[in-house]
């Protein structure tokens, strides 16, 4: 099956896989959104405990998706991995730093002798909740706005200075957060993660007060999300984009490139529209009907929308990681990818992904048969 695929098809297949992992990660960032809402949605310790335990059983899944995304991106597009992580050093380091402090916080926050105290761990959760979506958004925004770097693979023959990828700003990635397009995506993700968190709480927690507060807060939060999301979409669809000449492989600026991509790839347009409608319908269900189904519509919608946005960045002769410093250093799914052999081998492994999703689904289902309630966690010696 994969052995007969062309190199181009394999590269496209892996762009979709990596995009899908990114899309699932964005959806699962409802955990981060929830971490920013612990104070606002709870009035008592018990209510806060319900919130923490509800997202606490999912945080590792979000975390694992991020790690797998990193590994899969490395395996399929190593030039991106080496250029972006080694170049935009500070933005990625801060993202990872926020995940490090998150990883211990659930487990340690209520344990005896936990050294830093519950408040500190809850602050860690809050920091991760804000930083992760904003900075991930800013970093992904550069897929459309570009970064200042240069790449010269043959530099390894320069014994005195064998540097392949060179970042050309001293801020090493932090500059991404100052760009209005990147920042609007970051803030859109922040509010989206909060929206998804509230829809998840409505679905997962058996507590009148929390559900009511979530439904109420959803309205304001969704409006903020929509403002930043529409701003981001408006900006990228009207901006010049980084196009690749299919014959010469030269990168050039094309007006309305991403709008063209959307029109020239109707499947992406359809995915995008279904996705956005799904998110909106999910919000409606949660905010106005306090329906537990909101998370499923909004979650699926989120995955489809992110998938579509990343396809806009990578397909249809577009440079997915453009360089504003040296246009020809821009990364495309063609010049940044692994060899055909490696992509083929990895594609066989990817066949196991549905199995993975199936057991995650099964485990998730069997754990959530009963909603998270006071009685539920009072009897649980493993609670956070």
């Amino acid at each position, binding site marked *: 099956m994969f052995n007969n695929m062309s190199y181009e098809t394999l590269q496209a297949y892996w762009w979709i896989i990596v995009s899908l992992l990114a899309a699932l990660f964005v959806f699962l960032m409802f955990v981060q959104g929830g971490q920013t809402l612990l104070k606002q949605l709870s009035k008592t310790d018990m209510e806060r405990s319900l919130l923490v335990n509800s997202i606490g059983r999912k945080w*590792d899944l979000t975390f694992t998706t991020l*790690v797998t995304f990193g590994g899969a991106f490395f395996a399929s597009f*190593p030039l991106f991995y*080496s250029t972006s992580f080694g170049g935009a050093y500070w933005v990625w380091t801060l993202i990872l730093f926020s995940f490090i402090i998150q990883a211990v916080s659930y487990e340690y926050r209520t*344990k005896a002798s936990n050294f830093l105290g519950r408040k500190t761990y809850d602050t860690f959760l809050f920091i991760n909740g804000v930083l992760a979506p904003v900075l991930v958004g800013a970093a992904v925004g550069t897929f459309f706005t570009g970064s200042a770097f240069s790449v010269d693979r043959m530099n390894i023959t320069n014994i005195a200075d064998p540097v392949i990828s060179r970042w050309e700003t001293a801020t090493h990635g932090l500059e991404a957060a100052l760009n209005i397009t990147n920042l609007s995506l970051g803030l859109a993700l922040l509010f989206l993660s909060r929206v998804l968190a509230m829809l998840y709480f409505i679905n997962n927690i058996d507590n009148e007060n929390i559900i009511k507060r979530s439904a109420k807060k959803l309205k304001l939060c969704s409006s903020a999300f929509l403002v930043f999301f529409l701003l981001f979409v408006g900006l990228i669809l009207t901006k010049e984009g980084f196009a690749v000449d299919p014959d010469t492989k030269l990168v050039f600026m094309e007006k309305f490139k991403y709008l063209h991509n959307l029109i020239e790839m109707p499947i992406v347009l359809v995915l995008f529209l279904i996705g956005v409608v799904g998110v909106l319908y999910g919000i409606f269900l949660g905010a106005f009907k306090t329906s537990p189904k909101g998370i499923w519509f909004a979650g699926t919608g989120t995955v489809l929308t992110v998938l579509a946005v990343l396809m806009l960045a990578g397909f249809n002769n577009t440079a997915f990681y453009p360089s504003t410093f040296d246009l020809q250093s821009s990364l495309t799914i063609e010049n940044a990818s692994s060899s055909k052999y490696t992509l083929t081998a990895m594609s066989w492994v990817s066949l196991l992904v549905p199995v993975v999703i199936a057991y995650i689904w099964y485990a998730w289902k069997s754990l959530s048969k009963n909603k998270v309630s006071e009685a539920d966690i009072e009897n649980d010696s493993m609670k956070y």
Partner: protein
Amino acid sequence: MEHFDLALVDWSRAQFALTALYHWIFVPLTLGLSFIVAFMHTFYYKTRDEKWKVMTKFWMKLFGINFAIGVATGIILEFEFGLNWSNYSWIVGDIFGAPLAIEGILAFFLESTFIAVMFFGWGRVSKKFHMLSSWFVAFGSNLSALWILIANAWMQNPVGTKFNPDTARNEMVNFFDVALSQTAVFKFLHTISQAYIIGALFVISVSAWFLLKNRHLLFAKRSILIAAVFGLIASIFVAFTGDSSAYDVAHKQPMKLAAMEGLYDGEKNADLYALGFLNDRTDNLNFKGIRLPSMLSIMAFRDADAFVPGVNDLVNGNEEQGILSAETRMEKGRIAIQALADYKTAKKDGNTELANSNLKLFEKNYPHFGYGYFKNNEDIVPNVPLTFYSFHIMVALGLFFIAFFACLLYASIKDKLVKNKFVLRISVWSILLGYIATELGWIVAEVGRQPWTIQDLLPVGVSTSHLSVGSVQTTFFMFFALFTVLLIAEIKILMAQIKKGPEEGGSHV
């Protein structure tokens, strides 16, 4: 390598060493304890004896505390290859990325999904599914070790790969050569079995403390019995896989072996330095202590008469044994690098003939490619004393563990443990020895292979990201401070949880 930014290489290495050594405090306990928890969970499932449930829950809780910080320190490693080793990530990403991705897809999800079921499944899922989840966690975590160790083994023994001059990188040509190389198999077996020793020592240490305090006697005795059996099997296995690993190193990384043994002048019937000290001489008279005659030749080549090359042979060459000097290899390396550059230029100019002749020249000299970046002979020698002492202390501790587990097992069966305060006190502290041994193991593996990230092909100096030293220093101290604070928190929480003991820790049973 004075032309590279030495400070940058050193700080990048320091950061990797820091994060890896911290991560490795937690991983072996996760790998080992996960199986011990799964065993206990199975006993509970089979017998429905509440005492097993209490035990399972107690160890599971400690497992969870340790697991969280293992995950926290692990995420940075997944991305650090890109963050600090950008050149490396492109030059070998085609091979190295795959095991990392597979680790995520196959192992991490298995681990993280079922860990949630394992912790929160009590009373929520069926007893059978719950028990199986504990096994999935154990398999998942050990499977993740498999893939990352395959990746590491490939750096030490880069098989199944070919340099593609057009993309200027190494590309995979045979996945199974990479995944099933002898180096990978030995490394995996040696590392996980050693992790089981840590798991066993941890259980023994905690249980011995209970016995000394005269608390939870039945619980502690049962735990020690299980751990002693598990530990004894693991420690014997570690000795065998360690021997196989040394054999592999002798063939693939002779300089590492020379450093491990402090062998400067190669010889036939080479002695194994068993116990003693190194002086600062650069010949074989530098060792003072007990020697085991011909044992090094036997260990390295399964032949008492075999010649084992020393540091000096590998640096200066040894014609009789067909060993090229570092200088010759540097010369050939520079030819390969220049030929690659000329090939590219010729190809650009459309001069096929010149391109082909340069390609041939490049391929002929490629085995020495990495040497081309060095200037001095000494650049190819790792830190000998650090490697030597790390290796010898590790081996001594390994042998001690076999005897220790055997004694404990005997005392457990004869039910003589409770009275023997001396053995119990040693047992409490034994876990520290376990950690020392396991961290030293990584120092042997990683310091001993210097100056290479990829053996003979890519030096550490050519692997780094182009960053300012200040940036790397800053993140180094960020991670150092954070990890240290988190480690203190973890130890305090573990101690408090252990003091509470199984009944309270397990609650409502």
